[in-house]
């Protein structure tokens, strides 16, 4: 990879599914570290991740992964895939395979041909995914969260330079999510990790950078702290819900968490969360792209 080239570079990338525009002229680049991808359903997150994971091609624009154009030749896409780990949003499993067997199968596809080294690597990633004790169980007997972690384990094979995770925390309990954050945090020191999630707290806890997608375009691309900063002064705790608030809800303390709109009478200013900033970003008034200088 040439100096100054990002791990992932998308320039003017568009993708359509029939009449539906999934991505429209996306310009974005990713480098080492963990980047969170947020957006409502249908925003284009999965499409973006699938293009980066070489699962599908873009209709137009330029895609460069690890310094290569994956559309140029079979050799280029194979070279990219040798350093890629991908957890799709929906991953099926052969019902007759154990967790170890499935990850081993993927390891063979990823060219781990030495049996001893392969077994060792499979055990390593299963351990990293918290499945050391479930390795010999059939996947059909695992819980939804455990199956998701099998998918994560196969994505971690070989410590890939580029890791693409589509909703990796789905079905995980809080302790498992904490484990996953630990794993991905360590991975982010040496790899480029892209993860999409609906859980803003995962992004807040784990990612230095966040990209907000909506309607196939990038609405925000920058530091998590910068996105949160956009919500300062627009979040309150009040005794009554705000009449023109973007959204409000009654918290466990009995007070109402109010986001957006006019400050309710008697309300106290609250420290905004990433979720608040995200909601404000995608509210009816957030119409333009915001990129910090």
């Amino acid at each position, binding site marked *: 990879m040439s100096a100054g080239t990002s791990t992932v570079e998308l320039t003017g990338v568009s993708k359509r599914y029939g009449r539906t525009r999934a991505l429209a002229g996306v310009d974005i680049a990713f480098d080492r570290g963990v980047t969170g991808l947020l957006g409502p359903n249908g925003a284009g997150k999965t499409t973006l991740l699938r293009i980066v*994971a*070489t*699962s599908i091609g873009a209709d137009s624009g330029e895609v460069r992964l690890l310094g290569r154009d994956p559309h140029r030749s*079979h050799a280029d896409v*194979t070279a990219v*895939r*040798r*350093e*890629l780990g*991908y*957890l*799709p949003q*929906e*991953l*099926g*499993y*052969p*019902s*007759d*395979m154990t967790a170890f*067997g*499935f990850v*081993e*199968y*993927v390891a*063979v*596809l*990823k*060219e*781990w*041909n*030495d*049996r001893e*080294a*392969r077994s060792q*690597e499979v055990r390593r990633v299963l351990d990293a995914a918290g499945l050391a004790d479930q390795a010999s169980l059939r996947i059909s007997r695992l819980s939804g969260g455990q199956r998701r972690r099998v*998918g994560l384990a*196969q*994505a971690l094979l*070989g*410590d*890939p*330079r580029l890791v693409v995770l589509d909703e990796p925390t789905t079905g995980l309990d809080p302790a498992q999510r904490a484990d996953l954050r630990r794993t991905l945090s360590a991975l982010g020191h*040496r790899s480029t990790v892209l993860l999409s999630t609906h859980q803003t707290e995962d992004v807040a806890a784990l990612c230095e950078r966040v990209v907000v997608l909506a309607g196939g375009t990038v609405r925000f691309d920058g530091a998590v702290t910068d996105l949160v900063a956009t919500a300062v002064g627009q979040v309150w705790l009040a005794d009554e819900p705000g009449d023109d608030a973007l959204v409000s809800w009654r918290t466990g303390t009995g007070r109402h968490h109010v986001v957006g709109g006019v400050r309710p009478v008697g309300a106290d200013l609250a420290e905004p969360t990433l979720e608040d900033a995200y909601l404000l970003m995608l509210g009816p008034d957030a119409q333009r792209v915001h990129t910090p200088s």
Partner: protein
Amino acid sequence: MSSLSMPASGIAGHRAMAVIEARRMARHPVFVLGVALGFVLLGLYVVLVDDKTGIPVALTLPLLGAFYIGLTSVIAAARLTRSTEVAVEAVATAPGTEARRTLGLAAAGIPPFLAGLVFSGALVVAVKEIGVAPQEWWFGTLPDWQVWSIVLLCPVACLDGALLGVLTGRWLRFRGAPAMVVVALIVVTLLGQAPLLETSSSEWRLWVPWAIFHTGDNADGTQTLIAGNPAAYLCYLLALGALAVLGAMWHDRTARTPRFRTLVAAVVAAALALFVLAATTGNHDNRVSDPIPSRATS
């Protein structure tokens, strides 16, 4: 880049994948059921058939193994093929191509082939121990190469069943496709040869994937050996199996290189040549054995 090395693909990779798929096939419940049924029925036949002259119509018994092991292998291999592809979004972004995965799946034919081989071996041993009537079409009344060829049709048919299953799994994605293919196979095999068996053109039945060479006992106690060259037919079946694998690999568009197309054409040509060889060499006409008096029913 991680300090963990990542070896390049090659023979070792194919071998690793073949071992995985062969193991999955060997454990597949449908395949295990077919093997169990085949051996149990063979055992019951050998033990229970009451014939003082020995095991009757021994040369038809490879069909038993081909039926139970071969047909269940179609279903099992098709399911294995489909089951791996449920994870296609993850496995398709690994370096290997679909064609490479298909080649690995072809190794699922190894357990059925071995099971068929053991079945044929058990048959030969049983006949050697118990014996056959001196008029039976078997070793002694036929050249050894013809008997071995017919006996070995069992393992080859079992292998081809699995390879047909891989082809089915690659191309037919609807529920019930494997069962439909099994039924179609039986119908084609029956209708493709039954009208020709008793005619002077019986050797042309050999285009069907599971042709019989022995009709069983006739009403007058004789047995009919159907015309054709069983050794060439055996090779024809192997060519059909190869075509099944190539047809399954064809599903991957990236595999359709000029070299691959040439290979397909060559195997098609070989299959045609072997079919013609099977039909035009060996026994030119049906042969009828001497009657076995105890078997005559008319």
